[in-house]
């Protein structure tokens, strides 16, 4: 009988360990996404303000984060801060910080885009009714901007979930790392387990990301008009 690598998956508590790793991935992604949404909305509003210095600073931040590969950012925050400033962050904390920095920048840009796509006369109609600036945002601008934003934000979310695979490289034991450990541990007994484990991870990521992107499609359709 041919020796199938898939049996590794069901040896001991291997499968549960994989799910545990997935939970680390999801936890980090989710925390970073939630923080990014909150901070990104603020950043996006700031980027539409008239004050040149504020707008310029936000722009520099955005470009800096975008130009940097996420891996470099991870290394700077994880290794760089420890070496130069003696700040020792856990891998997970460093990951949340980096993904929040990145997500905030991307999200901010999406929010800015959504806000400037709202015609100026929508603000003016609100002003003309005597609404305060806060009320104009709350009742008129944000509800419209959010509808345009949510499909894009969800897309960003799936990108963030996928990019968390990089955190293996700063020693966080997430789903990919767990798989590598299992493969290593069984290298001699089950040499071709890699394809099965990575295949499983493919499906795990799919299970996490697919509903999220379906949701985006759904909302997009519902808010089309």
């Amino acid at each position, binding site marked *: 009988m041919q020796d199938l690598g898939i049996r590794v998956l069901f040896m001991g508590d291997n499968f549960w360990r994989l799910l545990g790793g997935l939970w680390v991935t999801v936890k980090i992604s989710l925390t970073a996404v939630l923080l990014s949404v909150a901070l990104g909305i603020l950043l996006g509003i700031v980027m539409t303000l008239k004050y040149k210095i504020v707008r310029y600073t936000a722009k520099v931040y955005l470009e800096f984060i975008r130009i940097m590969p996420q891996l470099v950012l991870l290394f700077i925050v994880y290794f760089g801060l420890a070496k130069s400033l003696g700040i020792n962050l856990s891998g997970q904390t460093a990951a949340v910080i980096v993904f929040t920095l990145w997500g905030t920048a991307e999200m901010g840009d999406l929010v800015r885009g959504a806000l400037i796509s709202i015609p100026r006369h929508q603000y003016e*109609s609100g002003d*003309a009714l*005597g*609404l305060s600036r806060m009320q104009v945002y709350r009742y008129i601008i944000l509800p419209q901007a959010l509808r345009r934003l949510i499909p894009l934000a969800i897309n960003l979310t799936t990108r963030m979930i996928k990019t968390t695979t990089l955190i293996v490289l700063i020693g966080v034991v997430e789903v990919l790392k767990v798989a590598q450990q299992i493969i290593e541990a069984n290298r001699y007994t089950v040499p071709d387990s890699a394809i099965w484990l990575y295949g499983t991870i493919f499906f795990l990521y799919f299970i996490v990301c697919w509903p999220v992107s379906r949701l985006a499609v759904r909302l997009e359709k519902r808010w089309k008009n």
Partner: protein
Amino acid sequence: MEQTAMLLEMHHVQKDYGNGAVLKDMSIKVEKGEVVVLIGPSGCGKSTLLRCLNGLEEIQAGEIRLDGNVITGGQTRWSEVRQKIGMVFQNYDLFPHMTVIDNILLGPLKVQKRTKKEAAEEAEILLERVGLLDKKDAYPRQLSGGQKQRAAIVRALIMKPEIMLFDEVTAALDPEMVREVLDVMLELAKEGATMMIVTHEMQFARAVADRIIFLDSGEIVEENSPQEFFSQPRTERAQRFLNTFTFQ
């Protein structure tokens, strides 16, 4: 001089976008109950003038008074002033994510803090008057251009403004819908509403106005009664402008 009867006064108002004055030394007075129609070629500053009146544009010099109180300058509480100055714009500026009734109630509920019951009752009376009661739960995208403008007028009216500003409210409408909007405005005029209207509809201007102000290049060229203005304008500039509306 009776100061008391003047609802709105502009004194030597200057508006400048940085590349030349859009309004030059503009002085206009509007009495309570008066309908003033502003006409003039595009770019003459008539829309800008309306926008200055409710603070959508800042003015560089001069002052504007509402009920005798100066409303220009640093300390203006625009939220309060704007409740007294209703404005309807050229583009249908209903909020697209809200139904007609929610559009209308936003101001009364959030700015004036009126009760929902009372405001909703008034909204229905006003909607009935402009023939839109059956559209109260419709979204703006389900309305025709004329219906949107009538809803926008109700949204401004429900704030019980002292003066209504209309900025080319029929300019973006299909011809067959212009009438239904103008009729609403004519009716308001008959009821004694104070209005300042920017329009290109000359027949309508003639019918609705108590006074015509003809602007060109940011200046008042002629101020006249509608009868005289349209039959024998005093200025050659107004004459030429009016000629562009007739075919020979």
